[in-house]
């Protein structure tokens, strides 16, 4: 008691403030806060810079109707004019074929993992293989298709070959997101359906998949966004054509990434530079629109648990 009474005057002033911290600790805390905020600002620089550059250098060609309706047919690097119709269509066609092949396999694969194989060794193997597929670099996927499609079967370099390699890249994205969504579907829904005597496959088709539909669509859009920007498979598996070619099984085909690649060595020439940045902006817009749509769909169709 006396000790406390004696000590008390010494603590007068600051020390009674129990929330206080010593100078070194307070300093470290502030320093950490500053560094963390700084890290965030540093990370934002490239995003703002890239978007700013591409928009400011590319937007004026996009305002021209020709950009959306004309090809580059007959237009040399030095000449202005033409549009990106051929490349936009090429990108869309190849992405569409990719989706048509990849989505059913991915959704059924996810159904297998969640509804049929859960916990089995086979499902673990499948799951592991998907992880490997997730990590396969696009150039390796392209080389694989090159090896099969061109070296072994002796086919030509065409848009369809690109789609085949993009399937390898899109499949794991869609499969994983579908799997996550199917897992979120409450078991009560399944059980209610079984209790009514509905067969398992109909339960999956009419109850489970529709419940998870929004999430599946999100995954498909994110997968599409990923494959549309891929350039490496285009470089190896199809030639760039300035003409409109809507046939993925015959002839070279334009695509936005290869359109950028085509003129990027001629950036000193104004018409070429304009086209490069306009194509880049078009590509970013396509990818961003898909990403934003995916997020919106995800937000409005989230499965409400409980």
């Amino acid at each position, binding site marked *: 008691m006396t000790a406390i009474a004696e000590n008390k005057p010494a603590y007068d002033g600051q020390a009674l403030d129990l929330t206080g911290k010593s100078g070194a600790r307070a300093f470290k*805390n502030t320093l950490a806060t500053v560094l963390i905020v700084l890290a965030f600002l*540093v*990370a934002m620089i490239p995003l703002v810079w890239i978007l700013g550059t591409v928009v400011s250098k590319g937007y004026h060609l996009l305002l021209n109707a020709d950009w959306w309706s004309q090809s580059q047919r007959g237009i040399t690097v030095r000449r202005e004019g033409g549009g990106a119709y051929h490349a936009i269509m090429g990108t869309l066609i190849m992405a569409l074929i990719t989706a048509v092949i990849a989505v059913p396999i991915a959704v*059924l694969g996810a159904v297998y993992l969640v509804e049929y194989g859960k916990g089995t060794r086979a499902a673990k193997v499948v799951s592991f293989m998907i*992880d490997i597929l997730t990590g396969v*670099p696009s150039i390796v996927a392209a080389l694989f298709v090159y090896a099969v499609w061109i070296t072994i079967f002796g086919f030509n370099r065409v848009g369809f070959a690109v789609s085949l390699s993009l399937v390898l890249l899109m499949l794991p994205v869609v499969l994983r997101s579908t799997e996550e969504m199917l897992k979120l579907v409450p078991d009560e829904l399944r*059980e209610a359906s079984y209790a009514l*005597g509905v067969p398992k496959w109909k339960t999956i088709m009419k109850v489970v998949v529709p419940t998870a539909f929004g999430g599946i669509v999100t995954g498909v859009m994110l997968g599409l966004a990923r494959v549309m920007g891929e350039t490496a498979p285009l470089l190896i598996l199809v030639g760039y054509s300035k003409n409109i070619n809507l046939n993925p099984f015959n002839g070279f085909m334009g695509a936005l990434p290869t359109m950028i690649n085509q003129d990027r060595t001629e950036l000193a020439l104004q018409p070429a530079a304009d086209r490069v940045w306009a194509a880049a902006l078009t590509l970013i817009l396509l990818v961003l629109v898909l990403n934003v749509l995916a997020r919106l769909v995800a937000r409005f169709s989230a499965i409400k648990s409980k």
Partner: protein
Amino acid sequence: MTESGPEATTATAASGKKMELGPVGHLGDRLFSAFARGSGGLVVLIVAFVGIFLLALAIPSLADDKSSFLFSRIWEPGGDQPRFGIAAMFYTTVISSIIAMLIAVPIAIGVALFITYYSPKRLAQPVAYAVDLLAAVPSIIYGLWGIMFFAPILLPVINGLSDALGWIPLFEKPAGDNVGVVFTASVVLAIMILPVVTAISREIFAQTPITHREGALALGATKWEMIRMAVLPYGRSGVVSASMLGLGRALGETVAVLIILSVPNGNDPWNSSIFAGGETFASKIANNAAEFDSPEKTGAYIAAGLVLFVVTFLVNSAARIIVDRSTPGAKRPRRNRRAGTAQGASA
């Protein structure tokens, strides 16, 4: 995530049993389950095919190789004496990815902490989206922006680093102001893998049990001390595996590197400096796609692609193993124990 644990397994087993009450062996059921299983099997087949076909096409060329594939730096797949060694590519690929990781990981951890614990609540979600947007920018645009706009401002950094550390061969700057160097590619790669590492770290940090955090704060820890003592140790393995996934991405990145890196002249001596040009596996393959005219040359590039495949596979598996072993570590053993006792009780 993938490890759903015994609880989930028993749940399906139970519903599976209930199923048998219904029409057993329904044709639709059998067909549908066959399709689902087939798709699962197809995924396995695809991955196996990728490995097998690449190997099958690479082996004949490797047999003709007149130099040591793994240790030679000479790459001349054409001609009577085909020689292809991947040492130079391997070096550039690995060094550029490692530098990218060294830059990206600390920033990604900072951004993840900012989103989870520092930013105002209303800002956190938009910031997370903004960082994810970085991942949505196609890589060819990174390459273009990187060499046109970003590289010039890196020149002073390159000069400064080489002035200070130039006595180390790694930082020795060759004559001339070349910006299409490994270092530039690394910084751009760092920006490209930032969203991956941030996204995973963010999720892990957010999962730190609130009791750990409040415990630290209750003991009088400052916010930073709370993060250092509760959040970071909890998230460590998650961050490591996120970094590995980022590394895997950086190793395989093709077009951005292809655009940025200047290919050294054929007669120039090989340079180990990060301020020199070079070629990675991916950029070499993409650069020489036009050279795939004979099966032998193609095989040489496929062999290089196979090495890239194996390296990325190893890195990604390491990431997965770390995740499996320890990320939900705080959760998993507990969950298993609980499931174990539950099973014991029912038996």
